């Protein structure tokens, strides 16, 4: 089920909301949130509910086991076992085909004729997200950062919470634990107004901006060999903003929906195209993923302790795996490596404390970072490496080619998106010190109305991050 669908807005959400607030106890609300999460998820394909239920059960059991276990060695195994289960499921469903295909290709290259059977498995939607939810829960429980919950329904509600189930943000249990525990005493009215305002803001980003850009980006990039230099730049810039507003819109809607149920979901995007450098970009883009990668991979690898080269190695490993997390394709691996190289390059140039870049004008840093990020999106969007190379070739050499007739409209949309991304307040800035004034609520209502109109038109599209 999509947030930007009529069935969600006019059936699922009102029913879920009204029943939730008519329930009295914390336990009842946990059960209801779990049930609705499975309905939300199962609407896409009910078979994969079993997979999510299995992951939930394994991690919950491990959490309970950690509660009573003091022996460090046993605790370590209790942590490792469920993580292996989670990663095996993720590996099977997401990467099995990719690895066997890659091994076959490598075999062919070396003349070995590997001919391993390639599995084309359907990727369960959101598996990358809920797997990270359960893994971070287990690791935090092992580290003693959180106390594992004794309530199965509280944990079930955490994993299957519909607002962040299929495309994040990756909410760690510790970030939402208090709200889940107090969900029976949440304040309905204040959550509803601010939640609606967040939802409308997210709708604006996703339905009005991202989907309008997609109207041009998708057909243009489908015919990328025919695009010249200008056309390719326009298409890639369009995608740059489409991706941002699409994913940011989803995250903003998730925050709004969470607030409507008394749950505070953390910020996932903080105007990333204002970033001054690659390091700053990763503090602003998909914050929940980059902090998970930092806390559960980069720091355990050694982080920036030790020599510079040790830190560079850790950065590269983290970013490569971060790239691979996004999809089983070499384009994502290259994208991760590219961003790893940007971070290494930035740390190399800036010095340990950034002293070498302190004199750099802010606007220049923003511009360079933005262009570098745009180049990276080429790998992110391309179906394969030859497509990425051809797009880059078209961008950086003068190529004659067709410029579709709607180029002016598309250019105007990109300009509007750029202005919003760079200068307008993001959703959390807009809602700082939020008061449900008449103007604010009327604005939210108008945006919701316009978004519903566009959803009922023919252009509504699924969220880009569903594929991850």
């Amino acid at each position, binding site marked *: 089920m999509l947030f930007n669908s009529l069935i969600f807005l006019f059936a699922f959400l009102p029913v879920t909301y009204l029943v939730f607030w008519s329930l009295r106890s914390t336990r009842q609300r946990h059960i209801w949130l779990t049930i609705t999460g499975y309905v939300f998820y199962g609407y896409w394909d009910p078979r994969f509910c079993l997979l999510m239920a299995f992951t939930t059960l394994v991690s919950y059991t491990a959490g309970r086991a950690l509660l009573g276990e003091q022996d460090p060695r046993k605790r370590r195994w209790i942590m490792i076992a469920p993580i292996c289960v989670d990663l095996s499921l993720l590996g099977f469903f997401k990467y099995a085909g990719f690895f066997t295909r890659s091994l076959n290709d490598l075999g062919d290259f070396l003349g070995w004729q590997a001919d391993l059977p390639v599995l084309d498995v359907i990727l369960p939607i959101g598996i990358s997200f809920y797997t990270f939810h359960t893994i971070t829960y287990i690791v935090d429980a092992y580290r003693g950062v959180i106390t594992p919950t004794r309530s199965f329904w509280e944990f079930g509600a955490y994993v299957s919470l519909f607002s962040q189930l299929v495309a994040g943000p990756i909410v760690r249990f510790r970030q939402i634990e208090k709200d889940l525990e107090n969900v029976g005493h949440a304040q309905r009215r*204040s959550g509803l107004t601010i939640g609606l305002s967040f939802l409308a803001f997210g709708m604006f980003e996703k339905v009005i901006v991202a989907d309008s850009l997609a109207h041009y980006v998708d057909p243009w990039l489908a015919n990328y060999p025919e695009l010249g230099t200008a056309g390719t730049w326009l298409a890639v810039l369009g995608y740059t903003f489409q991706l941002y507003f699409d994913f940011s819109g989803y995250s903003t809607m998730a925050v709004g929906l969470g607030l409507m149920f008394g749950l505070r979901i953390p910020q996932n995007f903080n105007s990333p195209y204002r970033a001054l450098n690659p390091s700053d970009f990763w503090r602003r883009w998909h914050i929940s993923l980059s902090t998970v990668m930092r806390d559960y991979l980069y720091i355990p690898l050694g982080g920036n302790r030790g020599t510079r080269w040790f830190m560079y190695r850790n950065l590269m490993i983290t970013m490569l795996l971060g790239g691979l997390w996004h999809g089983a394709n070499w384009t994502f691996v290259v994208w991760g490596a590219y961003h790893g190289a940007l971070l290494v390059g930035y740390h190399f140039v800036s010095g340990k404390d950034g002293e070498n870049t302190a004199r750099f004008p802010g606007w220049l840093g923003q511009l360079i970072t933005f262009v570098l990020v745009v180049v990276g999106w080429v790998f992110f969007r391309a179906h394969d490496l030859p497509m990425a190379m051809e797009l880059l070739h078209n961008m950086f050499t003068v190529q004659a080619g067709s410029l579709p007739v709607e180029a002016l*409209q598309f250019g105007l949309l990109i300009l509007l998106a750029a202005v919003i991304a760079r200068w307008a307040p993001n959703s959390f800035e807009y809602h700082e010190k939020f008061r449900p004034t008449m103007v604010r609520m009327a604005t939210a209502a108008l945006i919701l109305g316009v978004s519903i109109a566009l959803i009922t038109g023919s252009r509504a599209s699924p969220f880009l991050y569903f594929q991850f």
Partner: protein
Amino acid sequence: MGESQENAGKPRRGFLSGLLAWGAFGLVVAAGCELGSRVDDWFFDRVPVTSNPTFTGLFMPHASGFRVGRPYARWKKVRVNNLGMRGPDVPEARTAGCQRWLFVGASETFGEPFVADHEYPAVLRRLLAGGPCVEILNSAFPGIVPRQFNAYYKAELARHRPDLVFIYPSTHFYLKEVLPPPAPEPGTARVDPPGLLDRLRFMERLRDSAEVPAPLQRRRVAQWIERQVAGKPADWQYRSAPADRLEIMDTELREFLQTIRDTGAEPVILTHAVRVQRVPRAEDFADLRAMRVYVPRPTEEGLADFEYAAAERTRQVAADTHTRVIDVAARLSGQRDRFIDLVHFTPETHELVAGMIADAMRAPAPREN
């Protein structure tokens, strides 16, 4: 994040003021729906914000008694050209050195209103671009019955002086209980102004996107057919292709072909294809039953049989009159995945049909012995 602390210490709002506030919120949402629909149509389809395009607005009454296309009208993704036909503008007078191909048909040829330029005449226009100049005129409009083609051609279409006239007759209309007259009474055409709800573009979007659940829809159709059949004698229903209706179709098609030739144009017939097999499969019945809302007199089996018999008769007429025939029925009938319902093509099928026409027109025409 600035979670609000509003209302802290304030008296609780009364029920009435809350109701008013949420009522106002709902009204603004509704206004946003309409505004959004209009701005969306304007930005992506160039439909003026203040206009109220409707299906009936695509037409205007003609002195002949027919409704004809209203030049430059719009509705959904439909753009009517300067000649009142779906497609881009075409010069009023024939362009020197250009062939002019005219398409006559109903909704199958007009195409879906939700998508622009997917209908087979539009695809053909793209296929022929870059070759010798051909002007494509798509005069089809939904609901026109084939027995009125002849009169419509004489009254409105012949003046465009086509070289070729492609006919795609919706043969199932010959099964209407009471056949409409071959030509309407002159001066009787009416185009009703749209009602208030029809003027709300969001309502139209909502109608388009809302789907009646399949079981409910099946029940509605079944009840409707039951009402139409109730009280009729047993032999009233067509259980196989009725010979008299085939004869009428045969005669009128021959007359139309002659009319076209009399105006100096060459007719080309496309046989009418359907999704179902002649002896319907279990999965064919739902499509046939849905069509019975328009033609309740034949049974599902009778309707399928008539469609196949009509295609055979069309081939026979083409052979007798030395008319070029493009056998769409032979190529597509019975292939469920080629259609979205009993008679309308998928976008891929529109492309296939356009390709069949392009190929056929490269082949030499049949000659009289």
